[in-house]
């Protein structure tokens, strides 16, 4: 398992239970993966709070949120299986917030018809990662911390291991494995304003791409509507959607609650793409806040509820921005949050297009289509982490160990060592910053052909310059050296994002084209695929998998726009009253 977030750990647990010998390899210390930052909750149709909820409604919400270019089978499996996965997490020791009668409490979230998000205050990700981590430790699964893998090793067409380095001492390391599960997360770090940590460099997907796997929907990058804006050092840090789920609302500089017009039904709890665009438009129209955002207000909830349900938000604003959110509104603006795109996988097994390579979680694609709903990522990790782990462990029973090709290892060593040679002149951090700025300017929330093409030129130029990077120091815990290799993956993914964004000449979900504001029904029937053609990023299309009639009829009322939402939750479900 490459990656020790929710998906990698859940896959490891499953594979280990099936009798496979498992090693988890991760870039950071165990328990620090990006899953830990998830705040709001995990979506599962338990119907504990709203009894009318069921998997079909969850399925429809997910497909509609994704603008119907999702893989329907993944969305179906996800909606059907997530309740069981949540309950299972409690058997590992997790404890969610509870209803008065002792069941798991669920909260409202954007574009979910019913209150569906199982949560622990605003630290759900921490609860999840710690429970999985404890389980891994309990089962005695082998974990290799602070090891970065940079290349998949192949024997013919089959993936038979991976190669990389130990971050601590810089020694090279090769793993021989009958199967590899890629659970390496996303690539938010390619952008300047992001809620992602340094780890989100797209390296897993980049490795898969290099080895010949297909990358699906790369252009679909999610902006979370609410990131911190001020002060500059915290720009992009996430403000959980739970703030709106608990009843927080958005206002512009004139104090007007603009979501009332944008989406009169769901208001602040519309889907993330809609809310992010609305904020962007307010700022463009000159109604932004002092630092170019909108206000997010929870004062009406009362200090007690804020501190109980949103404790880490309270702390975060107080410490980092000198704002007491019980007394003043939060200033927020959209921030890069999530990659809907990733390795193309088979729904049931997480198998990629390469034999022996599986993917799950954010590194895989298909479930979320053009826009992910809040809370669907944590359930994604569990549902498809488990499936990938199970499929990989049954695959390894059928194959033998491959033979490591020394030439591949030597080639990768050469790539890795290049920046340490004294010849280079470029600063790896500054190149990374320039890439982030280029992507922010050219492939951000609002896109148009001219800007995308400029962005592509800048990426290609940076790629040239990246061959001349020089990093001082040794291989011993040298972040500059680590960044140099990460940058290669980031450039590959950035190119895939931009090339696909140019070709998708329409607006759909997170992909908003100022020069093509409408949806194009023809493009609604295809997914873009980026693939490696002799070292070049090439694009092709694949038809969106067609839903079987019994599922398709759930969308009978749907044309190309998001439908009128299914019956809104009964009024007590709007948790806007202060509970005393």
């Amino acid at each position: 398992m490459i990656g020790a977030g929710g998906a990698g750990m859940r896959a490891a647990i499953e594979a280990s239970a099936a009798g496979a010998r498992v090693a988890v390899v991760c870039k950071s210390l165990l328990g620090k993966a990006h899953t830990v930052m998830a705040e709001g909750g995990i979506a599962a149709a338990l119907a504990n709070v709203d009894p009318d909820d069921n998997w079909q409604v969850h399925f429809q919400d997910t497909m509609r949120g994704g603008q119907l270019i999702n893989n329907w089978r993944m969305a179906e499996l996800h909606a059907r299986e997530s309740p069981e996965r949540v309950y299972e997490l409690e058997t590992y020791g997790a404890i969610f917030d509870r209803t008065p009668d002792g069941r798991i409490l669920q909260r409202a979230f954007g574009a979910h018809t019913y209150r569906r998000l199982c949560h622990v205050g605003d630290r759900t990700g921490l609860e999840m990662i710690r429970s999985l981590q404890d389980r891994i430790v309990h089962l005695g699964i082998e974990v290799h911390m602070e090891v970065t893998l940079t290349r998949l090793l192949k024997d013919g067409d089959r993936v038979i291991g991976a190669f990389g380095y130990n971050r601590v001492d810089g020694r090279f390391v090769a793993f021989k494995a009958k199967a590899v599960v890629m659970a390496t997360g996303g690539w938010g770090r390619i952008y300047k304003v992001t809620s992602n940590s340094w780890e989100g460099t797209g390296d897993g997907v980049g490795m898969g791409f290099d080895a010949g796997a297909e990358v699906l929907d790369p252009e679909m990058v999610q902006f979370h509507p609410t990131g911190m804006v001020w002060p500059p050092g915290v720009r992009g840090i996430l403000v959980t959607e739970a703030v709106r789920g608990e009843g927080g609302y958005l206002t512009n500089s004139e104090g007007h609650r603009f979501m009332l017009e944008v989406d009169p039904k769901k208001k602040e709890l519309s889907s993330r793409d809609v809310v992010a665009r609305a904020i962007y438009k307010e700022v463009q129209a000159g109604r932004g806040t002092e630092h170019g955002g909108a206000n997010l207000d929870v004062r009406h909830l009362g200090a007690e509820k804020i501190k109980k349900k949103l404790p880490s938000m309270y702390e975060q604003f107080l410490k980092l921005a000198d704002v007491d959110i019980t007394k003043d509104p939060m200033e927020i603006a959209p921030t890069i949050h999530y990659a809907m795109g990733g390795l193309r996988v088979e729904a049931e097994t997480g198998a990629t297009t390469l034999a022996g390579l599986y993917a799950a979680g954010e590194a895989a694609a298909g479930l979320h289509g053009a826009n992910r709903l809040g809370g669907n990522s944590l359930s994604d990790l569990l549902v498809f982490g488990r499936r990938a782990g199970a499929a990989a462990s049954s695959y390894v029973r059928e194959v033998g160990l491959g033979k490591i090709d020394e030439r591949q290892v030597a080639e990768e060593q050469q790539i890795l060592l290049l920046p340490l040679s004294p010849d280079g002149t470029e600063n790896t951090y500054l190149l990374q910053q320039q890439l982030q700025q280029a992507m922010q300017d050219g492939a951000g929330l609002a896109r148009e052909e001219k800007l995308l093409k400029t962005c592509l030129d800048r990426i290609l130029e940076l790629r040239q310059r990246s061959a001349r990077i020089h990093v001082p120091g040794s291989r011993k815990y040298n972040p500059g050296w680590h960044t140099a290799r990460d940058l290669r993956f980031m450039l590959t993914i950035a190119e895939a994002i931009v090339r696909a964004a140019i070709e998708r000449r329409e607006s759909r979900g997170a992909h908003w084209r100022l020069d093509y504001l409408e949806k194009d029904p023809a493009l609604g029937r295809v997914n873009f695929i980026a693939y490696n053609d002799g070292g070049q990023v090439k694009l092709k299309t694949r038809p969106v998998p067609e839903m079987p009639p019994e599922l398709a009829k759930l969308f009978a009322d749907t044309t190309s726009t998001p439908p009128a939402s299914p019956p809104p939750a009964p009024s007590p479900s709007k948790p806007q009253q202060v509970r005393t």
Partner: protein
Amino acid sequence: MSSAPIVLQIFRGDADSTGGEQRFEVPAVEGMVVLDAVHYVQANFANDLACRWNCKAAKCGSCSAEINGRPRLMCKTRVDEFADQEIHVGPMRTFPLIKDLVTDVSWNYEVNKEIPGFTPAANEPVPYRMLPEDTERVYEYRKCIECFLCQDVCHVLRNHDDKSAYYGPRYMVRIAALEMHPLDTRKRTGLLHGKAGVGMCNITKCCQEVCPEHIKITDNAIIPLKERMATDVYDPVVRIARKLNPFSGAPATTDLVEAEASQATGPQRFAVRDVVRLKTRGRRLARVGSVLPDGKLEVWVLHMNGKVQHWDGPKVVRTSDITNNYGPLDEVGIGSKLVEQYITQDHAAEHHG
């Protein structure tokens, strides 16, 4: 905010060299935190400066360091709080240095492996039902982000380097989370008394002062665990037994006495640590503490508070006040919750009968 640059003194060095502070000047930006300044140095002056970080939002606990001598998260420490002072940034000193600000914290992960994990009853129905009032107290422990600042500041680990005697505050918090989990069935008091070494803590509360999650580590985790351990391990019986026989480390179980015969139950022998049932109101269970010279018994009476046992006493009873003797505590197995349940059910049945 002044436009004067921030002056940082950052520790540079690794295990193979002595190392020392290196001075850097970083342009001040409003709201800057120490981690921002370190990143600026890394990008512009020292590409190979080693530091750990992930979330930059105080959620992952990676960027622990000692800032002007105090263990803190770099991402949560504003540079403006130091006004015009130089800011000294160094690695956590309790753990072996790897390089610059990065230390080898692997010992923590090894310790964690020794703690028995969450163990629900095999037949506990899923989905779990747990009442809010029972789960609420566990949340505080589960807020821990494993930054290891508490481990860094703990004088047992830091000054005495006694990592073999004490697991440290982080793992007291973890054990507390497991012990207080409403559905956990395992006892870890033996571990606490032994290898985990909760007794090593002498409650200076330094750990809870540095906790970035504001967990009251000493008050709400360590002290309750000490109490729990005292009940289970250093119970009064053992203490009294030790008083009677100061040269023996083991609990004395040889103070047998031929008690006066009760007509109802026939002659009985009572030993220290025997579990008995009292005839008095409530027909409570008790445990023999000591046998007094006049043949009376000092007993400790069992009160169940939910699943938690309290032994009240000592109370002096006559042997004729006792109906049943179930035998030595260890064999009866109070402490194994199944037997405990059996005895309490038995108790209830007898009581109603």
